[in-house]
């Protein structure tokens, strides 16, 4: 795949080459046309002057009149270098030294209509003089003389050079202006691409992080503000939207991976991750750790009598009560169907008894509309009160589980702290 920057540069270079080519071709065509136009112009001038002289000298002429007329003509036609006139047998040159070019004018001898010759001496235009008749019935075509003018090449050369010079200057001006415009365009497009690249690089780094920012818009606003083209802005905003959505989905996935959907308590998966971390700290720091294993009394009966929906409602309310009752440092895990494990870091067993009791009271106040209160039993265990050394959380869970069993056996709806 080709980069847009490379593509643009390539096409701009191509455009420039095409422009230069077009100017060269156009100049060549124009110079050719100019030459032909100038040639036609010389043809007309010569024809007009020849016709005029022919008319005048048809009425009357003498040597002085002819040379004077040719002189006047040369003065009027700036680019005329030499004028030749043949009337009958007589030949006239102006200026007189034109006789040296007699060989040149031999070119005109055979022409039957006006003709142009490009010679080393200049541009020679020949115009044969024919008699002009009043009636078209007279078709006699007798050549009565010849008129020829040698024009200097300097005139047309100077016109062409001046024209080319003007063209080159104009082209340079247009090329410079065009260059500036292209440069500005490139700089602006390049700036937008750079911003887009920086944004992409930033997002790539962002995605490598373990924890994604909750509000990527504010972090990426700096990039969005730098875009000067609407389309780039659209693309940038779309990227931000996509990233926000990715972050949101990631957070949701993370939450679903460690929390129970129904009770909003942590699940066993989180417990396993947490245990490895907390146990290491507890073992190193030797601070107390207590747990409580909670189990709703006769939950099966609730499910059987009032249906699973009611059971779910009970569990949901129970989770809410638990979360609202424990501290932020405490952890509540749905351990089984209606079993909840509470972990209290840096807390002694007695304190746990108070917290669990608080939960009990709050939970007992809820009316589930089944005509009776729903209670739960709890077994509490603590380190270092119950075990001198905490090698595994399972040791504490085992003790708490045992005490829960004792609580159930002793009539339910109670908290057991000792065996």
């Amino acid at each position, binding site marked *: 795949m080709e980069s847009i920057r490379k593509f643009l540069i390539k096409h701009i270079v191509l455009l420039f080459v095409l422009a230069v080519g077009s100017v060269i071709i156009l100049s060549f065509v124009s110079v050719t046309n100019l030459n032909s136009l100038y040639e036609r112009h010389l043809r007309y001038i010569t024809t007009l002057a020849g016709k005029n002289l022919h008319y005048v000298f048809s009425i009357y002429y003498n040597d002085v009149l002819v040379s004077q007329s040719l002189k006047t003509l040369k003065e009027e036609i700036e680019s005329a270098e030499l004028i030749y006139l043949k009337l009958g047998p007589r030949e006239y040159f102006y200026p007189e030294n034109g006789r040296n070019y007699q060989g040149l004018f031999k070119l005109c001898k055979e022409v039957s209509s006006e003709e142009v010759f490009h010679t080393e001496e200049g541009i020679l235009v020949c115009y044969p003089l024919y008699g002009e*008749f009043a009636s078209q019935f007279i078709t006699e075509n007798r050549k009565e003389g010849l008129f020829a003018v040698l024009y200097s090449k300097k005139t047309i050369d100077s016109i062409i050079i001046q024209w080319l010079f003007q063209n080159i200057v104009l082209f340079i001006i247009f090329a410079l202006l065009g260059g500036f415009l292209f440069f500005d365009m490139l700089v602006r497009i390049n700036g937008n691409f750079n911003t887009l690249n920086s944004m992409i690089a930033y997002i790539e780094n962002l995605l490598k992080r373990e924890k994604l920012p909750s509000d990527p818009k504010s972090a990426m606003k700096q990039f969005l503000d730098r875009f000067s083209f609407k389309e780039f802005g659209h693309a940038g905003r779309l990227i931000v939207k996509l990233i926000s959505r990715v972050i949101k989905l990631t957070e949701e996935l993370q939450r679903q991976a460690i929390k129970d959907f129904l009770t909003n308590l942590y699940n066993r998966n989180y417990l396993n991750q947490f245990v490895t971390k907390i146990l290491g700290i507890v073992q190193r720091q030797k601070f107390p750790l207590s747990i409580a294993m909670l189990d709703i009394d006769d939950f099966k009966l609730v499910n059987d009598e009032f249906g699973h929906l009611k059971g779910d409602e009970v569990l949901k309310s129970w989770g809410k009560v638990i979360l609202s009752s424990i501290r932020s440092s405490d952890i509540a895990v749905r351990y089984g169907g209606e079993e909840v494990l509470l972990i209290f870091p840096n807390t002694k067993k007695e304190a746990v008894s108070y917290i669990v009791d608080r939960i009990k009271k709050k939970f007992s106040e809820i009316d589930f509309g089944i005509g009776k209160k729903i209670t739960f039993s709890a077994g509490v265990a603590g380190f270092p009160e119950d075990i001198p050394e905490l090698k595994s959380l399972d040791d504490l869970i085992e003790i708490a589980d045992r005490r829960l069993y004792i609580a159930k056996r002793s009539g339910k709806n109670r908290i057991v702290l000792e065996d």
Partner: protein
Amino acid sequence: MVRYRVLFLVISFFLVYVYPVNGKAVCIVDSYRIEATSYVKSLIEKELNNFAVFSNVNLDREKVESCDPMILLGTPAVVEAMKKIKKKKVIYTFVMFPEILGLHKKKNFFGIRIIPLPDKTVEVFFSYTGFKKNKIAVPVSRRTQKIAKKYLSNSKLFEILPFDDDISRLKSKLSGYKYVYIFPDPALLRVVNLLKLMKFAKENGQVVITSLPDLDKYGVNFIYAVDYNLLAEKIVSLIENTPEEKILPCPARVKLWSP
């Protein structure tokens, strides 16, 4: 009797289709390509169904073979035809002086004059205007004098006034005449010479007569000249008919009378 009728029908059938089988067409050669010849050519073409037009004056034998007859417009084509066509019927016009070319002696050449003869022109002039017959000056260059004599000898009214190149030198001789006839002389019809003549004639109250149809813009008083429509009709009629005369008179009419 029935047998003869059948034979007649068969022969008629062949007669009707002889032309296309033969494949020969009327060929037109315009060797002048001036406005007048183009117009006449177009009139002839309108009248014909099967014709060919040659743009080249050089008459190739093959081309000539496929034509019957040939219509030639202008002297160059006629001169060429005189060399190459010996038996085929040739109709020509736009030849100023056919007798000079000896066309009246050619058996297969039939021409129509493009300008009326001078004596016919002056005859029409006097009858048309009612003017009293008087001597008519005919300025002619020495180069054309011989031809002029041949065409002007029928009438005693004409008096040839020869000049070299410049008609101005004739002024004193011209001033004694009331009428001037413009003979188709190239030297006289040079624009400069004709302008000089007309200026002089106007200043002296002379009536200028001509047989050339296109001199009206120069201020000529009387023009008795060819009628192109009649000319075309006459040419077309010559395709089928063979007249006794080798050179037919110009189908002319009075084109201008401006006293």
